[in-house]
């Protein structure tokens, strides 16, 4: 890699009060890559994603965005530097219409881009175009996830962070969502860092993957390799995804 990775996490430790959630995590995401972090419930996946976004702040270590230290910045400033996040549980504005949700996503962007970006999101998720004036809370789970991703894209991110986009969705919808994430990376050129419990889909999509166990990186490597790894298979893939 000739220039600095778009995202680098170096020895990050995060605490909730006295409880340590991350024990020195290191990872790198290069520009244009899809990287995933898999792990069981409570391994610290969401904490890692939130630490990258500055809330909670890392007590030790550093988060670098294009080589710039963003560890101490408040969330909104990190987002303004081109990092968009699709938070856990989607967190769309349920009283606002689909259109208004997308508008909120474009808050930090020059309004001149708005209609062009909107067309792109609607082209990627035609369901959102159909439900444009519907309130966010009345959408199905899959549509809400699409809206959350679309809203994040409206901020024209360089790096998109996704926290368990498959959570609570039907298998068919999960497949659609992962296809969309792949298209965002290929067609829009957005770098993607994805945290997932659904190891099968995530590793199949990703260029590289990390396995997080109890707040530490246990394994890393290309997605296909991890998918074939015996330990990964027994811990995360047993019980058969075809």
């Amino acid at each position, binding site marked *: 890699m000739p220039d600095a990775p778009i995202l680098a996490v170096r020895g990050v430790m995060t605490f909730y009060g006295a409880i340590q959630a991350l024990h020195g995590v290191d990872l790198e995401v290069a520009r244009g890559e899809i990287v995933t972090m898999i792990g069981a419930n409570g391994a610290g996946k969401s904490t890692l994603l939130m630490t990258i976004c500055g809330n909670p702040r890392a007590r030790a270590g550093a988060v670098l965005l294009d080589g710039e230290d963003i560890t101490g910045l408040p969330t909104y400033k990190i*987002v303004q530097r081109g990092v968009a996040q699709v*938070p856990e549980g989607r967190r769309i504005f349920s009283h606002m219409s689909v259109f208004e949700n997308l508008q909120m996503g474009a808050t930090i962007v020059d309004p001149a881009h708005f209609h062009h970006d909107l*067309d792109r999101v*609607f*082209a990627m998720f035609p369901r959102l*175009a159909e439900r444009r004036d519907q309130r966010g809370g009345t959408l199905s789970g899959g549509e809400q996830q699409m809206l959350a991703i679309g*809203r994040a894209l409206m901020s024209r991110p360089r790096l998109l962070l996704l926290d368990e986009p498959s959570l609570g969705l039907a298998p068919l919808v999960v497949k659609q969502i992962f296809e969309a994430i792949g298209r965002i990376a290929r067609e829009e050129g957005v770098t993607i860092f994805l945290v997932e419990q659904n190891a099968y889909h995530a590793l199949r999509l990703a260029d590289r993957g990390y396995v997080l166990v109890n707040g530490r990186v246990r394994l890393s490597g290309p997605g296909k390799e991890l998918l074939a790894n015996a330990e990964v298979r027994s811990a995360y893939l047993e019980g058969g995804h075809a």
Partner: protein
Amino acid sequence: MGPRLPSMLKDAGLTAFVAAALGIFIVGFRTYDVSGKGLTFDYQFTDLAIAVATIFVGRLGLLLAAEGLRWPALVLGAVLGGIGAGPLALPSDFLHWFMALGGLLIIGRALWPWARQRMSTAQHSRRGLLLGRAGAKWFGWILIAGAVALPFAPFADQKTMDLSVLILTYIMLGWGLNIVVGLAGLLDLGYVAFYAVGAYTYALLSTELGLGFWIILPLAGMMAASFGILLGFPVLRLRGDYLAIVTLGFGEIIRLVLINWVDLTHGPDGIRSIPGPTLFGAVFAETAPAGHQTFSEMMGLPFSANQRLIFLYYIILVLALATNLFTQRLRRLPVGRAWEALREDETACRALGINPTSTKLTAFAIGAMFAGIAGSFFAAKQRFISPESFVFIESAIILAIVVLGGMGSQIGVVLASVLLIGLPEWFRELGSYRMLAFGLAMVLIMVFRPRGLISHREPSLRLHPVRPGGDG
């Protein structure tokens, strides 16, 4: 209705029988005190028969309506109501009322499911939504036209105008607080503090420095806004209940400062002889101070105390409408939408790059500014202010207006102000039961409209019609 009819008739018959059994002693006999002969009694069986027949028909009508047989129920209701309200002479006035109300009740019961269905389909169909929107807009314009014409209405005596000015002041305060509570979702229990800051700014600047109403008005707004920022900066990182407690404390602190800083505020004695607002330099009084002329001299009209009141009325009307216009505009701007988003989900807002602290601070400052302007008007109207006017209950009333109106609804604030400020005045005849009736009204509103009188939220922006070929 075939097989159900006998059982309905039986039910109605039973009800009538119970009514007859109870009524025979209460209605059927009547005692008279005939002088010399002691008590005698008279029979009133006609009355009883009519009452029992009414109950029979009424019960039958209600049963039919409950079964969904709208037309038979409507016919029964109309017959009953027609007899009650008609010219037919019944033995007593009470029976007239009884039958008429019974008829109305049946008609209402028969129409209720239909009306409800109509309302819900209207709310859900696109056309209904559009109609509702247009309706709301027209309703707003009609209200404004009515408000402009009010001083010339035949019933607009001094009492009505006084009350209207009061209601409009609260509408303006409600609209101001609506920005903070309704839009940004920040529970502010000390809103009256900013009202007080505005009032004292006007009182002090006008009495000490002799500045005029129109100059002080924006100054008072700015003063209150700076107090809003001063308070907001340290506390806006708090959420919900904690913010409410701190703002409550702030309201009390302002009041205590006003009481105790005697050199500046004259303490509990308040500030007297505050000059009223002027119109192009003309004062509203019988005689003008040196260097001024009175309004009646300027216009060549005979002096009347009402002129001042009408002038005040138009000032507050304009101020309130300006507040509303400003808020409506703001809602369409990014900062306004950020307020609403912040109310829903602060974490999501951060994730979209919105700075929550500065966004909240703007809402707080703008809300405070309108309270300050309203306070300034209040001081100019009352001519006398003291800390007494800025107690916690005022904050509570303004908050109640916003909550009862339906958080974030502008027209809801108007309805709630009329209810909350108007009703206690109209209830005055109830004497000591006044507050009881007021409380009952509030409980009823919260039971039947738990999300406020107007709970529907308008999307602040809609997309233009779909553009063809939008797949880019």
